[in-house]
């Protein structure tokens, strides 16, 4: 009887010690300034943000906390005041986010291109077609049960892009989703690629996640359509609006945003992944837009991701015009 109580007490003490020792671990440095950033999965899953975080935290005494979610949830976090800043890639949603008064100081930080990937056999014959033409072929082959399409189905930036591509190709996405060849994964990019690979299906993907999975031998899908204005993918940073939520670390968000658009930040974006994949996963956008280096590309970005001719309309610049000069 005594023995059992002693064992019990020892067990309790052990758990308590582990708890206390553990606390010392993660409380660690004490109350450093915190910056919560909700981000689209593609920037995080490629580990680009890990690299940026390390460089940023070495220079500033701000702890950056990334929460990796889809663009939809990232915006929801900021609207509820749970994130100080968001990194997203869905211009149409970004505009309503600004208009609803939840975000300010939007800044385009990077771009790349989406790709339509599919099985090597390419049953719908889409290789090197224009994106809309390729989608039309996939629908036709799909209806004849010769091909499948896997959709993210999670309201992420990539999913929003997919829906707009279907519209551009003359299809109604809400009707397509009821058809047997159209599969909704309801998952992040990585999982969706794996599902598509297992089903020998086509899917829309951001280049970063695709290259990582392809080079690691996790999937064997080929990038079949990689060019065209419709496939442009633009990443932006937006700070939460402090007039909406008093607890927001607005100054931290601006500091981080300035780092992202600095020479150093843009260089990290430009070189990230080159050593491993032989090509950049993301391209820096700041100098391109500032100096108008490639007029066609700049025009594409303006068509797709500018609001009334502005990267961020003046009424949403919140007294930070220096971000836009």
């Amino acid at each position, binding site marked *: 009887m005594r023995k059992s109580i002693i064992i*019990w007490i020892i067990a309790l003490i052990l758990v308590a010690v582990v*708890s206390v020792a553990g606390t010392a671990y*993660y409380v660690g440095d004490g109350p450093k300034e915190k910056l919560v950033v909700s981000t689209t999965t593609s920037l995080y899953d490629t580990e680009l943000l890990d690299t940026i975080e390390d460089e940023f935290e070495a220079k500033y005494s701000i702890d950056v906390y990334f929460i990796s979610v889809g663009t939809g949830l990232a915006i929801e976090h900021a609207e509820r005041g749970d994130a100080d800043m968001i990194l997203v890639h869905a211009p149409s949603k970004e505009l309503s986010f600004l208009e609803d008064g939840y975000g300010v100081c939007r800044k385009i930080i990077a771009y790349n291109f989406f790709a339509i990937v599919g099985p090597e056999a390419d049953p719908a014959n889409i290789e090197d077609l224009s994106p809309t033409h390729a989608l039309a072929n996939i629908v036709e082959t799909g209806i004849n049960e010769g091909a499948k399409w896997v959709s993210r189905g999670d309201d992420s930036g990539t999913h929003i892009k997919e829906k707009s591509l279907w519209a551009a190709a003359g299809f109604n996405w809400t009707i397509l989703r009821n058809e047997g060849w159209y599969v909704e994964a309801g998952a992040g990019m990585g999982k969706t690629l794996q599902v598509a690979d297992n089903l020998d299906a086509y899917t829309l993907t951001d280049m970063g996640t695709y290259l990582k999975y392809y080079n690691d031998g996790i999937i064997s899908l080929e990038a079949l359509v990689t060019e065209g204005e419709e496939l442009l993918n633009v990443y932006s940073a937006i700070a939460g609006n402090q007039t909406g939520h008093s607890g927001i670390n607005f100054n931290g968000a601006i500091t981080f945003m300035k780092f992202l658009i600095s020479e150093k930040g843009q260089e990290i974006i430009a070189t990230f992944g080159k050593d491993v994949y032989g090509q950049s996963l993301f391209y820096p956008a700041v100098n391109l837009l500032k100096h108008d280096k490639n007029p066609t590309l700049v025009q594409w970005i303006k068509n797709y991701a500018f609001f009334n001719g502005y990267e961020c309309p003046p009424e949403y610049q919140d007294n930070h015009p220096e971000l836009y000069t």
Partner: protein
Amino acid sequence: MWEFLQNPIFQITIRSLHISGTATLLSSLWSLPLGILIGMKSFPGKQFAKGIFNALLGIPTVALGLILYLLFSRTGALGFLHFFPSPQAIIIGQAILVTPIIISLTISAVESVDPEITDLAKTLGASGVEASLAVLRESMGGVVLAIIASFNRAIAELGVALAVGGNIRGFTQVLTTTIALEVNRGQIEYGIHLMIILLAIVFTITILTNFLQRRIK
């Protein structure tokens, strides 16, 4: 040695043990007395109370995670605490998650004790609390099992940790959330390493429990 302590796998493991251990301890503070009380007393509605806790045993972690996120979110009812995202939020969530487990298993353990022990203790002049302690001693095996089962449930759950912790590197990453993230990132090998650690923890604790129970009996 220092390098080992800085190793992310080690830190994530310690954080997992810490968060789930603290959650289990915290939950025991209210669940054990409640379980013993319900087990020992007979009162109207006792079966109903037991039914509720049994039903709550199977609460889906995604549901609990979402409810807690809405509470802890800065615009939520408990937003002023600034608990989202934080390890504390996970601790509270897991403590709530395991509460019905500890209570239900404790009730069963206490009820399996011969009621004569309480009577005997009382006739020997024991107070209510002393009688409870006597019953607790008799049902020790079941109570230990309740606590261990709770810890295993807490350390193995994903929904709450992801919803209110956000899987933030160096802050709220625990074993389950890191496994989910790394597999999504295509780092399957790293995910497997963490999975082995998680399984090792859960199995070791289960084996230890069996051993302890035999000793106690």
